């Protein structure tokens, strides 16, 4: 059976993740090399995210890591979508790291989780992005096809 480079690389990442992960990151499900679920927590005392756990869904294309994975927050019973001016209420994340432009193949699942952790940690605004309602109601595209306009360099 053919092994493509995405599976190879993901299997390496998986074995590493199974070994150990940075604090606040936990693997929930990784049964194949197409979709993984991970939980992240914000570790400091930021009141917005205190005592909350958020679920992340990673979707990998066969061109990973040349192409970025599709990463969204997943809404579950006890897993809300974190409040952030760059996270839409349907879980889509506007982060240049996850777009074609900001992505680099040296990034990995672990580094993405850590970036998201720090993106939450640094946030003080309890708000959704501008036009959240409209976007959530109308968006039928997949995150990788959306042209985000990255304007906020403070994140």
């Amino acid at each position, binding site marked *: 059976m*053919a092994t493509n480079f995405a599976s190879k690389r993901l299997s390496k990442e998986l074995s590493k993740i199974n070994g150990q992960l940075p604090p606040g990151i936990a693997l929930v499900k990784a049964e194949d090399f197409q979709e993984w679920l991970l939980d992240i927590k914000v570790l400091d005392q930021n009141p917005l995210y205190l005592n909350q756990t958020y679920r992340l869904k990673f979707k990998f294309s066969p061109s990973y890591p040349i192409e970025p994975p599709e990463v969204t927050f997943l809404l579950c019973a006890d897993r809300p979508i974190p409040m952030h001016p760059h996270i839409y209420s349907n879980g889509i994340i506007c982060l240049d790291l996850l777009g074609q*432009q900001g992505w680099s193949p*040296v990034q990995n699942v672990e580094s993405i989780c850590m970036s998201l952790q720090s993106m939450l940690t640094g946030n003080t605004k309890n708000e959704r992005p501008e036009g959240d309602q409209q976007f959530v109601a109308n968006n039928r595209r997949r995150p990788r096809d959306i042209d985000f306009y990255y304007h906020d360099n403070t994140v």
Partner: protein
Amino acid sequence: MKSSKEDAFDLSDSTDWLETPLPSLSSVDSALRCQVCKDYYTTPMITSCAHTFCSLCIRRCLNNDGRCPACRAQDQELKLRFNGAMEDLVEAFKKARPEIWLFANKPVEVLRAPSQSPSLKRSLDFEAVTKESPRKLRRTRSSGRNRPQERTVVVDSAEDDDDYVPEEGFVQCPVCQTSVKEDKINAHLDRNCEDQPPTRPHDKAPTRPHNKATTFGATDKPILRPERLPQLHYSMVKDNILRKKLADLGLSTGGTRQQLEKRYTEWVTLWNANCDATKPKGKGELKRELDVWERTQGSRAGSLKQDSGAQIREKDFDGQAWSSRHDDTFRQLIANARKKTPVKPTTPPEAGSGMVDLTGSPSPMKMPNQPPEEPVEAQEDMDMAYPEDFLPQTIEEFPTKQISKRRFFEESTADRSELPPSSQYLGIASDITTVRPIQP
């Protein structure tokens, strides 16, 4: 894809060392791995920004966005240079790894045993290591070059000129000091020693002239260095020429234009990466690799771009400049769209009412409870397809809009009277009305 898990089971990772008594080896191990594939470097190439990646990995990355994965600096495939020292290092470490691993995972008491004269133990270990490692290195390098003689490994050749005994059937060239098959020595000298592989063949690898296929391992079977292939500017290549190029390479010419381009790109990438390798693979093996790629990526090749304009856009596309440059056009489009909007919601009912007026057919409509949204599209279809008396359905539900409706109706009937029913105008009108249910 699950089955691929099984055959990818060489899952060694730099973090493996952390649980052993030699955790510091973790950083050594990690420094010998490519950041893209997380595996030990295969044919390491160094970029102009001095980062090293596997040849295949960096070529794929540069094909994708033309930037170094580590620092995002722009770079080109042409500027890649072989990092021979890194390859030697990787080969040496890979060979030594099992031994070190065994050593690191020895039962702890052997290592710790304090009573067993630790100094002796250490000196023994030290001796073993010093004895072992240089020999390893040599073997690795020479086997890496696929050359039977150890000669190239020795850096300072003058030192052992005297005691150097060439292998049987070989003589030492008096000019370049390398050993050459006895029956080839004269030819070798005639060519000014040029058929001899350089001591560090890789220094020349990327700049080697294409027409002169250098031979490696001159003593036994010569390996032909393949020529590098240029990437194509696909926008300048027509379909049939691309097909012909693929056919000339012995590759499949099936699939969409997209797939053809991707296949050609991947082939060139595989091929050029193979040209960098110390021991290039045969074409057959490359074709198998392309086949694997095709099966795991190819199906996606077709679907990748059809759905998004974003893929086609350049990476450095300046959206702001674009939008300011075309601001007027956008404004006009918006204005045009606005002009039409008040008309939109009214079209269907008013078309109905108009029909009623014209034909004088019995008073319309009687479904006051009907939700206003849902019938619109169906009704519009009917408008196109059926005679007038089918239409009047929802007039009463929009009493306040009657006036504007009527006005539009008059225009539209005027148009209708002038134009055949199949005219473009009707087509546009129907488009507008079918859009309507989406409007809030």
